[in-house]
């Protein structure tokens, strides 16, 4: 195969580095971008730069936001007696889509995973403890994935937070083990939230 012009090659390489984009899709996208209307490429580039500059993780909950703290943390109409603990920022979006939860969120940034060297220090657990004190939550809902690591993380949190005088609940059974919340449809997710129960 003849070599691509170096700037195009660089674009392909950059795209290939993105999640779920293989070499072929990367090439297809790159070829499209260099051949389409210049405005398309221009506005894509601007959108990427702007989004990257403006969107950050909320200092408080760890969700995606443009302001500090995010509107979910600052919104006064939300139930500030309960906090829902999730693994990733996108999980917040999943719950928000269902409308089944009106409280605050806390994103851990992952789950305990000894095989990947992820322990409690790598997660936002100490921050959660601080929030329990400063915001006075009465209930912590653990909404973690149902695989071994998610369940072990829930178990760990129960032990660590259990003596702090808060109620700890878990989503009702029904979240498929191994899958993140992305694969769960809205109905299942809101049922799981509504049927949450005491975790011992």
């Amino acid at each position, binding site marked *: 195969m003849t070599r691509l012009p170096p700037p195009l090659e660089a674009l392909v390489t950059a795209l290939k580095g993105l999640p779920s984009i293989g070499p072929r899709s990367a090439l297809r996208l790159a070829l499209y971008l260099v051949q389409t209307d210049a405005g398309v490429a221009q506005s894509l580039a601007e959108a990427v730069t702007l989004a990257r500059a403006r969107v950050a993780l909320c200092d408080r909950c760890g969700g995606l936001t443009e302001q500090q703290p995010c509107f979910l943390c600052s919104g006064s109409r939300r139930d500030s007696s309960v906090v829902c603990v999730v693994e990733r920022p996108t999980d917040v979006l999943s719950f928000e889509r269902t409308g089944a939860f009106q409280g605050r969120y806390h994103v851990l940034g992952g789950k305990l995973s*000894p*095989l990947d060297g992820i322990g*409690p220090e790598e997660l936002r657990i100490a921050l959660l403890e601080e929030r329990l004190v400063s915001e006075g939550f009465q209930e912590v809902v653990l909404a973690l994935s149902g695989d*071994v690591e998610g369940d*072990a993380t829930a178990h*760990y949190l129960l032990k660590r937070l259990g003596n702090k005088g808060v109620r700890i609940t878990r989503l009702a059974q029904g979240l498929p*083990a191994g899958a993140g919340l992305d694969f769960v449809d809205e109905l299942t997710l809101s049922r799981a939230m509504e049927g949450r129960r005491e975790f011992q």
Partner: protein
Amino acid sequence: MHVASLKLRDFRNYARLDVEFSPGCHLLLGNNAQGKTNILEALYLMATLRSFRGVGGSQMIRHEARGYFVGAQVVGQGVSEIKAYWSPRERKLSVNERPVRRLSEYLGILRAVIFCSEDLNLVKGSSQGRRRFLDLILSQTVPGYLVLLLRFAKSLKSRNALLKQVNPPEAELEAFTAELVLAGTAVMEARNLLVPRIAPLVRFAFRRVAGDADDMSVVYQPGFRGDLAVALANARARERLVRTTVVGPHRDDLLIQVNDRSALQYTSEGQKRTLAVALKLAQAEYLSEVHGSPPVLLIDDVMGELDAERRAAFVPLLNQVFRSGGQVFMTCTEENWPRELSQDLIRWTVQEGKLVAR
């Protein structure tokens, strides 16, 4: 259940193979090193996503090729079109054009039992092979077992990773121990229920193969007695020293005995072979019993290794397969094919990666 068609691309010595199979007994004849066993390997791969030769995917790619493709149409309750592509960089598995997300959803589409010379390891080899044997039967018969087994394996690995740390963190250890206990206890319960169910089948199969003289038994031998949580707690001091999980179902075994003595120590080579065949016959019969129809039987050269008298032990199972519209694939060379089974055989010649009906 039968495999209606098989398609190979760059698999072992097959550059390209497209073949259709009817139900019944297929005899794959050919000289050595022509690709007979490779066909069985491909069929077994469709059933279990593993090679029965215990090798990884890259060894099955034809020399110089980038990846292999194995496809099959399986006729069971319905018709399933399986497609599997494997290369070091990319794996694809689909059933009826839908990608398979979970292994547990896949197993069961094609049930197969292999009889091969590696089976001898069931008797002679380490306990790992015997645990795999039990686990495969359980995955083929108990919905949800595989999920459980994978959960156990994951919690064991995670727990061992924690124990390897300079100062194993107690709280995390406790969290993963809880998962290990849950999954591990369920795994042991399943194995404990299975063994007494297959034991009489193994015993009768052994009698049929070996003649009446000897008595064989199999007994589930858990790696410890009592409650897993308690056993783990008691083993903590030892774990601190060896830095790995020392009790649990990963230490289970299946004790094989002949006339109440350990088969490993007190049997001849020929008897060990017979024991291995009996275990596999029992597996096939148990699957037939549970599912109401026999699995696809893959018999690699085993007939050649047994004399005509001992071969006769297969006849009831083969008859059952014929009656129920099942399927058998049997490989052999011209010298050692079991002529006494000569009616109703569908014969193929295998030569240099080609399959020709005779």
